[in-house]
């Protein structure tokens, strides 16, 4: 395909090369469709460049230092020093390896790649403006389009990211020299993950959150385990306060917050990380020009085939609504690509797992007990605490638990909540269980390797039927 100031054509135009878009493009090409993927910034989108991957890299690296520093009980004495510049270099290497991998995979699968910003002209044409001065633009005709333009961080009025001491998560992930004092506005998953990273780097971290606890949306006994560990790390929490304004002082800033009653508090800090959520990027593409509806929040509504109100235009990933998660984006991308290829695909998954990479991790899938009740089920609950797990104790990570929610009649598994070591990995078995329509008995009868954390999943299933071996059944 010739890229220039000419009109070209493609069967599938994918806009945005994040985990929604690049996965859609690869699968479309695998299905024999002539596919073009355009991005104005970088292969891999937010996730690989400024999100999932860099955050997890810093979490792992600071964990190595933290674990070594706290292993005297195990007989390991170390006084690790962190060189943030080297850590950044390593992280960049990881990101580069993955983003160049994405580029290679796209090419190997025959996807046409274009760098530039796409805007819809109508429902079968887009204009692509190439970055940089005098780079020109091109027009591209498409049979189908997949919008995968992602999301951006929400700004707090007065705390716009262009001011140097005010950081977005992206700025925080790129820091070469950690500040002495960091104020984090927002205790959602991004705020909590990054607070933990900086606390483990030795930064004095204070968190301000409008709501009355961390990680809204998670059950109290789940988030409590993470809050406890964060307290132990020395993170200082202030709930029920909204960031109001900030002001430069001699060598840093002072931030003023206000609570419900209008009472103000002030916090000194060197930098302020604002992590109060993300909002869809639908404006960049002018979806209306193609007749694509956008809702009040900026999301593009889609059906269970990832299709928008316009027959040949699909939307996937963060721009298509909650949950704004990379694997949800990829799943939608795959379904959109298969639907376009004429396959009987649909977003028919029973559950989308989610993980928070705090210390310890949280991972959930499907329904909570409350949600199961609301859906009309009579829930049956099984739990297993990691402190009763041989594997947990033998790794020195024994906080948290596995909870399984099932329905009473046949014991079908409806959901699970895990907080504890490797929660993000352990949830995979339960996601499969839910998709398969597995029962408590199915999970309980499956032989689980000893000693592993996964045994806790089996024991939680047994516990629901009063048959756990390593915990008392209630």
């Amino acid at each position, binding site marked *: 395909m010739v890229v220039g100031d000419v009109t070209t054509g493609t069967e599938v135009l994918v806009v945005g090369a994040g985990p929604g878009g690049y996965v859609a493009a690869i699968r479309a090409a695998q299905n024999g469709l002539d596919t073009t993927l355009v991005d104005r910034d970088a292969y891999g989108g937010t996730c690989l460049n400024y999100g999932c991957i860099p955050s997890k890299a810093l979490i792992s690296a600071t964990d190595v230092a933290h674990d070594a520093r706290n292993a005297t009980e195990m007989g390991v004495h170390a006084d690790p020093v962190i060189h943030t510049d080297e850590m950044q270099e390593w992280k960049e290497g990881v990101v580069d390896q993955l983003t160049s991998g994405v580029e290679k995979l796209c090419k190997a699968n025959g996807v046409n790649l274009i760098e530039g910003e796409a805007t819809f002209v109508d429902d079968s044409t887009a204009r692509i403006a190439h970055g940089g001065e005098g780079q020109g633009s091109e027009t591209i005709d498409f049979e189908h389009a997949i919008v995968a333009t992602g999301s951006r961080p929400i700004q707090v009025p007065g705390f716009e990211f262009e001011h140097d001491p005010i950081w977005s998560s992206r700025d925080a992930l790129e820091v070469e020299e950690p500040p002495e004092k960091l104020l984090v506005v927002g205790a959602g998953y991004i705020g909590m993950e990054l607070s933990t990273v900086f606390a483990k780097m030795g930064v004095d971290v204070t968190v301000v959150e409008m709501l009355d606890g961390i990680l809204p949306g998670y059950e109290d006994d789940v988030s409590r385990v993470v809050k406890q560990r964060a307290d132990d790390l020395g993170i200082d929490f202030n709930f029920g306060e909204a960031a109001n304004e900030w002001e430069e002082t001699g060598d840093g800033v002072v931030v003023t917050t206000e609570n419900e009653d209008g009472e103000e508090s002030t916090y000194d800090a060197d930098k302020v990380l604002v992590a109060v959520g993300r909002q869809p990027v639908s404006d960049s593409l002018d979806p209306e020009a193609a007749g694509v509806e956008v809702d009040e929040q900026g999301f593009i509504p889609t059906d269970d085939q990832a299709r928008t109100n316009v027959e040949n235009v699909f939307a996937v990933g963060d721009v298509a609504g909650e949950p704004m998660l990379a694997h949800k984006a990829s799943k939608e991308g795959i379904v959109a690509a298969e639907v376009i290829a004429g396959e009987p695909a649909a977003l028919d998954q029973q559950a989308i797992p989610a993980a928070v990479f705090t210390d310890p991790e949280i991972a959930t899938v499907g329904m909570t007990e409350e949600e199961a009740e609301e859906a009309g089920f009579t829930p049956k609950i099984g739990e297993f605490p990691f402190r009763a797990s041989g594997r947990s104790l033998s790794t020195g990570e024994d906080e948290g638990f596995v909870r399984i929610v099932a329905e009473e009649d046949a*014991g079908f598994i409806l959901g699970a909540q895990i907080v504890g070591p490797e929660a993000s990995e352990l949830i995979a078995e339960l996601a499969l269980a839910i998709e398969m329509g597995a*029962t408590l008995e199915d999970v309980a009868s499956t032989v689980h390797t000893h000693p592993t954390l996964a045994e806790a999943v089996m024991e939680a299933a047994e516990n629901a039927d009063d048959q756990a071996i390593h915990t008392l059944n209630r």
Partner: protein
Amino acid sequence: TPDGRVFAPPAARRLARELGVDISDVEGSGPGGRVSEADVRAHHEKAEEHDETAA
């Protein structure tokens, strides 16, 4: 089930779409009425036979 949920593995759900079968019509032979691929196929064959006899 209360929320109209059908317990069936992904492969069975996909087969139902492929054959144009509404999976909530299929009687499951698994525990608790879990629907398998074989159940979907059997339902489809029965429906086709029925269509043929009807026609």
